[in-house]
């Protein structure tokens, strides 16, 4: 994030800081101590605990069948939820940024909804709609369709929770870019689809990649909503975060932290790639980030 800030502030005088150096160091020191205590230390603990009994115990956590199933399910869920949200996010932000229509603000608000709803509620609404006692539960049972406590329910909950990531990133980016380039393409005889593919998409590619990254990290890491709809059936409906909890509750602390380290590793890779993207394409991305 820090890399993106200088770009937005270009043109500002070099130093407007009036505080003395002692105050400055005190502030910086406090911030660093805070981060170390609440972010770095827990993260390090995860890895320390994971390797508490050596490499072999660490690797043993991943040879278990239930762990394989959890990894597989997490990948499947992300493989469905992320593309869905990419397609939806591009469509929504295209519509919102390039066109004027009634109810536009309402649509933007609705897209933001999952950010403000507690994940537990996100899970419960699906139980209330698709559960056996739910709104369309009896119909589903009649037609032998299992949604809650099965993969479709987990995918739905994940899609709901990760809904805003792509759209929220692309809407401000597209708004900033305006419609001039597309209009030029259309004037030159390109079809709408052609203009979208050759003009709009290349313009938003870095912002898109950036949002896909964040969306994916959340999709793989979601706990609350998924926990409500999963039913916790071992080897069938447990995702990685749920598997971590189960192992912890079975006093299998090394395995629990080993699997947690996988998720922490995913977070670190996401962070690294994200910072890399911000560093190289800060102009594109900052336009999106400023819209928040």
């Amino acid at each position: 994030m820090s890399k993106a800030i200088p770009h937005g502030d270009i043109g500002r005088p070099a130093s407007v800081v009036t505080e003395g150096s002692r105050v400055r160091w005190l502030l910086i020191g406090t911030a660093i101590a805070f981060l170390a205590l609440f972010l770095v230390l827990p993260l390090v603990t995860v890895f320390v605990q994971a390797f508490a009994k050596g490499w072999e115990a660490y690797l043993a956590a991943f040879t278990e069948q239930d762990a394989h199933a959890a990894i597989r399910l997490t990948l499947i869920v992300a493989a469905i939820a992320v593309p869905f949200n990419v397609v939806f996010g591009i469509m929504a932000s295209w519509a919102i940024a390039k066109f004027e229509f009634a109810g536009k603000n309402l649509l933007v608000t609705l897209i933001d909804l999952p950010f403000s709803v507690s994940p537990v509620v996100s899970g419960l609404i699906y139980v209330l709609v698709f559960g056996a006692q739910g709104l369309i539960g009896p119909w589903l049972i009649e037609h032998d369709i299992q949604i809650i406590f099965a993969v479709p329910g987990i995918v739905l909950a994940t899609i709901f929770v990760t809904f805003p990531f792509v759209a929220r990133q692309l809407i401000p980016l597209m708004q900033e870019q305006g419609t001039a380039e597309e209009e030029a393409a259309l004037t030159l005889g390109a079809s709408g689809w052609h203009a979208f593919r050759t003009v709009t998409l290349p313009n938003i590619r870095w912002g898109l990649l950036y949002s896909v990254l964040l969306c994916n990290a959340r999709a793989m890491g979601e706990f609350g909503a998924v926990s409500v709809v999963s039913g916790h059936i071992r080897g069938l409906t447990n995702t990685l975060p749920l598997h971590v909890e189960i192992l912890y509750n079975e006093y299998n602390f090394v395995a629990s932290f080993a699997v947690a380290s996988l998720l922490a590793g995913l977070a670190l890779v996401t962070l690294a790639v994200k910072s890399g993207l911000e560093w190289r394409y800060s102009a594109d991305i900052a336009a999106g980030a400023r819209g928040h």
Partner: protein
Amino acid sequence: MSDDTFSQTGTSPKAGFARRTPGSARPKSVAALCLIGCLAAMPMATTALAQTELLNVSYDPTRELYKDINAAFVADWKAKTGETVVVRAAHGGSGSQARTVIDGIPADVVTLGIPSDIDAIARLSKKIAPDWRTKLPNQGLPYTSTVVFLVRKGNPKGVKDWGDLVKPDIKVITPNPKTSAGGRWNFLAAWGYAYEKEGKDADKANAFVGQVYKNVPVLDTGARGSTVTFAQRGLGDVLPTWENEAYLVFDEFGRDKFDVVVPPTSIYAEPPVALVDANVDKKGTRKQAEAYLQFLYSDAAQAIFAKHHYRPLKREAARPEDLAQLPDLKLFKIEDLQGNWDDIQKKNFDNGGLFDQLSKAGR
């Protein structure tokens, strides 16, 4: 979910990249990746499973128990019929597990912590016959248990009996009786103790239980959560818990950190099992699911119960050294003090029941 469908998701995006000429617009491959990933993943969600699978929805502390039982049943069934079954398990607070069955988890059998949770499934979802108690021997109880105390090594607070739980300097760790069967047994055990002691005065027993819960700093949703709170996070002085759970802590954390205190009297805890009729008929697994429940009454399963510190129905099937670990104490049945299970549940744990009244008064 076979491995080859899985590898599809893994390789096809790469193929999508390879087809692009270098330097051409990247977003195209991103879109292709998404589309292919979507298509490849779709069939996986709907893949029907060919082999027979049983799902046992169970309560919190039975994780280790049913790992052993399930392996033994799978081997036994294979030897008897040649058929390979897979038994899956889901664990959580007994009350929340009942809720997932009501909400539609396709459980073939339920093995819960307290009879009223199975009654709730029967009443609210009609998936279990209301007379489930009569379908299996001993009211559907292949084993029973009781509540004992786990304390810190050397018992520094000198906890000996239920009466000690209301001392002002004692912190008691127990799960929430609303969601956990173990929590309800603890609640009822404390109530029964006071009821007998106070000359069968229900009001005094209610007040005693209220005092106990004033000493409870954390209410976890399941028995296992409370155990982790007590043993791993080091909170509290005493953990009234399932006998089996207390001994499991011994095995997992070592006997040098904790002591088990067996009170002179405790409750006869009844964790029953039942077939989920509607689900097995729909899935066509009645034969295997019934065999699974019958297997719980076999000598092999009874020995496994005793090994995991549950009290087996057939003591003669268990190893003597396992039985020696189950101490003799005076056990009372809550039905003898409070009547049938509908009443027990309603009076104590339903909305507005004794537990709610006590928590309100305690605030």
